[in-house]
């Protein structure tokens, strides 16, 4: 499996012209060129504005109204009452926040390190490394909805493989992995980790290949053992990959939705912020104000990793 990042191909095409792309001033263009450029920029920007950024702003707006979603004239200003409601009376809110935090911790403490471990192990010269990589990678290709179904078959109380392997199948003490509200979140997080670890592994395999081999040699010449070389030299050298992985882990846990929705529509112990947003939007009693207030909470939390990532990625561009 070639995990060579394509940047190298592009860089090779550049044949060592490392100088930054010299950019021309717009006034060198003909009128026609300028119109063409304006269209090339304008259409994607318009799509992006209308379907991503304006809805985001409207979400904030809708969180300050009472509305049943039927007629615009039914909209009534609500002030902060939607927020007051979710923070103080909406009994599912704080459990959902806690479940999101647990989800993040689970991916961060188990999923991501497992992916890193697999990448480091498979980066060594062991027989069949590619086959192992392919196996760990399979779940990354699957949709999270399908992962929910596949794991349901695996977890099923009466017919699932897990209870059989534990020797409890068909007995009164068979665990209802997805039905018991004390365990089902953990079961769902294991299913999510199944995919996440493979994803992290692939990114770290590429990251490890990008580390200059002479760094490792220098470290071992200086007398560092394998662990020291990894922790003090290789891992810090993968900083760009590390940043991406941190951001992906946080964002994946905020976006977690499909798996729990497939299992039981995100109820009975599987409440997550994203699910509550949707329950208030498409449930029987549409409470768009409350749903939007929840969406804004989700937005504000998501902005932390997004801003962190963007400031890291675009710092150089800004300075130019």
């Amino acid at each position, binding site marked *: *499996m070639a995990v*060579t*990042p*394509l*940047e190298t191909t*592009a860089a090779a*095409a*550049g044949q060592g*012209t490392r100088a930054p*792309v010299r*950019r*021309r001033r717009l006034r060198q263009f003909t009128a026609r060129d300028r119109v*063409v*450029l304006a269209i090339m920029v304008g259409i994607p920007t318009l*799509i*992006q504005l209308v*379907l*991503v*950024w304006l809805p985001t702003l*409207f979400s904030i707006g*809708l969180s300050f109204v009472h509305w049943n*979603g039927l007629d615009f004239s039914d909209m009534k200003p609500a002030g902060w009452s939607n927020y007051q409601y979710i923070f103080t009376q909406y009994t599912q809110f704080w459990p959902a926040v806690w479940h999101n935090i647990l989800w993040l911790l689970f991916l961060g403490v188990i999923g991501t390190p497992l992916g890193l471990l697999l990448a480091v192990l498979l980066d*060594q010269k062991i*027989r069949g490394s590619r086959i192992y990589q392919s*196996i*760990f*990678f*399979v*779940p990354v*290709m*699957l*949709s*999270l*909805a399908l992962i929910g*179904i596949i794991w349901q*078959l*695996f977890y099923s109380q009466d017919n699932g*493989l897990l209870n*059989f392997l534990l020797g409890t199948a*068909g007995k009164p003490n068979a665990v209802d992995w997805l039905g018991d509200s004390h365990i089902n979140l953990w079961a769902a997080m294991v299913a999510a980790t*199944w995919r996440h670890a493979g994803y992290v592994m*692939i*990114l770290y395999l590429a990251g490890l290949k990008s580390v200059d081999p002479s760094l490792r040699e220098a470290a071992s010449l200086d007398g560092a*053992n*394998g662990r020291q070389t990894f922790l003090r030299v290789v891992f810090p050298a993968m900083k760009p990959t590390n940043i*991406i992985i941190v*951001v992906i882990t946080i964002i994946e846990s905020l*976006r977690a939705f499909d798996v729990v*929705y497939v299992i039981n529509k995100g109820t009975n112990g599987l409440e997550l912020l*994203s699910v509550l*947003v*949707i329950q208030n939007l498409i449930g029987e009693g549409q409470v768009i104000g409350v*749903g939007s207030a929840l*969406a804004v909470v989700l*937005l504000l939390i*998501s902005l932390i990793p997004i801003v962190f*990532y963007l400031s890291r*990625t675009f710092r150089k*561009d*800004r300075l130019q």
Partner: protein
Amino acid sequence: MTASAPTISAPIGATTVNPNRRGRPLWGTIIFVTVMAVMWLLPLLWALYTSLRPKAATDKYGYFSFAGPFNFDNFVTAWNQGGFATYFGNSAIITIPAVLLTLFFASMMAFAVARFSWKFNVTLLIMFTAGNLLPPQVLAAPLFELFKHTILPYWFSDSGTLLNTYISVIAVNTAFQIGFCTFVLSNFMKAIPVELTEAARVDGASVWRQYWNVIMPLTRPALAALGTLEVIFVYNDFFWPLIFIQSGNRLPVTTAVLNLQGQFLSNYNLLAAGATITVIPTLIIYLVLQRQFVAGLTLGASKG
């Protein structure tokens, strides 16, 4: 494993300093990854195994048995009862235009941002990249209301609005994926030497020709990788059809698995067969285009 034993020319100290990297067959590692790999495959193999056994056999011998016949009857039944032909058709109707539009718009935007310097190009690029990282649930309510209140003639949409149309799902998927693709493609296009478009310009090539005849052919590897990745992303999208499409027969297969669950609730074998059928297209892409997919993932590791 043994082939990488230290050679004579290696520094004398190297073998004693770094015993882990060479020589030893790494049995601990091999045992660990093998155990993990088996655990990784168990859920998939369990679904496959169950789907190959008729319900009568599992009822008689239990699900944890090796007895009884194995055949593809469940697949045939699931395919026919589940309406998979329709769902796969819907997936194609949504995925193909969404991916083509995404790559087309993103490549134009990336070209303008990467090859020319103008006042807001970095700002716009940041906006595009950020948009892709938002949780989709944040935009769901306003988009739903926007589509619900977009009045269309009935010959165009039987709901009279944009709800329950393929267009709504295609448009939102395109908008959501453009940001990511623009980011990746702009990085790629920045690495193409400026002399190439410069020479084309001196020869009198217009901006469009520089884009279409000079830059795009050179961007082909990135487009292939991104295209594969986007096909999987859009095909795997569960959320947008769930929100926008109400008629069951218009759902793409990924969202339709939710219905299968209700339909085959009492028949575990059929559900397993349905799940396996849904895996097959992804598996084919995986086997044929694994390289492209992995390249796409690592190329734009910014994907959330």
